[in-house]
């Protein structure tokens, strides 16, 4: 299995190539520089293993939730490469990728992920993490920190910048054993989630490599058209 993965959904920007069980990754914290960095990163990881796009089996990308523009950059690059190289695409949840990354790092299986969604809200998901999978428990949501929920009885660990911005409210809602706020979704984890056989049923044609925003109320009707 040879797979290219990319993520530009948060302040982090990363690309990874997965080849026969090994991930090689370029990763950088680079707010607002994703467009400039992502193709050079992709080029670098593929050059490292000597692969051309047409030799890949699929492209995976962090499909959101996250910054709207960032998620669209990843979707657009994935669409373009996959269309040109005639490859399927694996749209992967950024929340699940972050859960997997932190779960693997600390060896913990119950992860509560919160990304800062601005406007006083978080992107929220709770996961059961194993070595190569992050199973969503419940559903992904965008909501006020005071409205987050989690399945009962877990031994939870927090992950993501939402835990920094809304620390007090979130830990009141869901007591956690600990928390890693300074972690972001990474392409290597996007790749790990994409290659598991169960996930392959969800690979799509490039036309359907689309963002998942969660927040769909994006128009301030009073402001629209008044310029």
């Amino acid at each position, binding site marked *: 299995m040879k797979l290219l993965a990319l993520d530009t959904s948060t302040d982090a920007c990363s690309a990874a190539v997965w080849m026969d069980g090994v991930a090689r990754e370029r990763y950088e914290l680079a707010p607002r520089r994703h*467009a*400039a*960095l*992502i*193709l*050079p990163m*992709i*080029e670098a990881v593929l050059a490292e293993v000597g692969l051309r*796009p*047409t030799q890949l089996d699929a492209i995976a990308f962090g499909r959101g939730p996250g910054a*709207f*523009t960032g998620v*669209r*950059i990843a*979707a*657009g*690059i*994935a*669409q*373009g*490469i*996959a*269309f*040109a*190289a*005639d490859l399927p695409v694996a749209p992967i949840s950024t929340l699940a990728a972050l859960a997997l990354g932190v779960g693997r790092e600390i060896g913990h299986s119950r992860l509560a992920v919160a990304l800062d969604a601005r406007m006083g809200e978080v992107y929220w998901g709770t996961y059961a993490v194993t070595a190569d999978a992050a199973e969503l428990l419940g559903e992904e949501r965008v909501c006020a920190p005071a409205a987050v929920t989690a399945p009962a009885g877990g031994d939870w660990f927090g992950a993501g910048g939402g835990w920094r911005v809304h620390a007090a409210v979130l830990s009141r809602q869901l007591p956690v054993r600990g928390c890693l706020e300074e972690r972001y979704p990474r392409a290597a984890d996007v790749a790990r989630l994409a290659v598991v056989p169960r996930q392959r049923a969800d690979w799509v044609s*490039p*036309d359907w490599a*689309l*963002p998942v*925003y969660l927040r769909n109320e*994006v*128009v301030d*009707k009073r402001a*629209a*058209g*008044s*310029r």
Partner: protein
Amino acid sequence: MLILGIETSCDETGVALYDSERGLLAHALHSQVRLHAEYGGVVPELASRDHVRKLLPLLREILRRAGATPDAVEGVAYTRGPGLIGALLVGAAIGRGLAWAWNVPAIGVHHMEGHLLAPMLELEPPEFPFVALLVSGGHSLLVEVDGVGRYRILGESVDDAAGEAFDKTAKLLGLPYPGGPALARLAEQGDPQRFRFPRPMTDRPGCDFSFSGLKTAAINTWRGLEPTPANRADVARAFEDAVVDTLAIKCRRALQATRLRRLVVAGGVGANRRLRERLRELLAELGGHVYYPRLEFCTDNGAMIAYAGWRRLAAGQYDDTAIEVLPRWPLDSLPAVN
């Protein structure tokens, strides 16, 4: 050389295949007008969301219509700016991704360069040099064009663009979004003698435009009237006459100042029937000729981006893999093509 052109700078998703030997092979456009109509103006986030859904299906469609396989594409041109940053990024990301995986060069094209070169896609294209009047919802420009990338701005709007003034005035007259074309249709029934609005900035030298005050004059007149269909049509007529007159006066000045006798008119307002008539008369009087793109290429489209991109790619210009879009980008800062 077969070039794929991609336009996503505002609320139209446009794609086209242009071949330097065979001409335009196919083009397709998805307009978001209905998406934004409910809000009375373009909502940038909704525009971006629509571009990323529509672009690849449109690309499949033009490849099929052109009978071309993807591996025949030899270069990709996409709109780098000016425009809405999120919308530009969608076209840039997909275009750059395609070009990179096809291993062909890519170039970011200036949207207004696309417009002013659009008449080159017609059977009788203008020769350089010429004067170009670019009038759309986002821009009002008079440019002296000595060649590709050789642009001197002769005048531009100091406030509203011409098309913007049309749309805003139409909205205040209660016409549905986007009101510009509807206002022009309504003006056909108006009495040209009833009202006379000022011709802004024609009483001083130069080729700059100002349409904001004209919009205000129309609204103030309309507010003092019974809101009858006839009154509305008369105001629309007086407004359109003032815009057309003003544009014609500035075009005359630009042609006289440059001693050129070829005028290219592009952009959405270039589809206005009365403006076309008026400028045809002007160039007949001056012993010159006026050039238009076909009506569907007056508004945003992928064909003009493919053509402008080809001119630059053929001259050896291309972008590296670091994607950069430019929401603001002065037309006269572009490199020349020899």
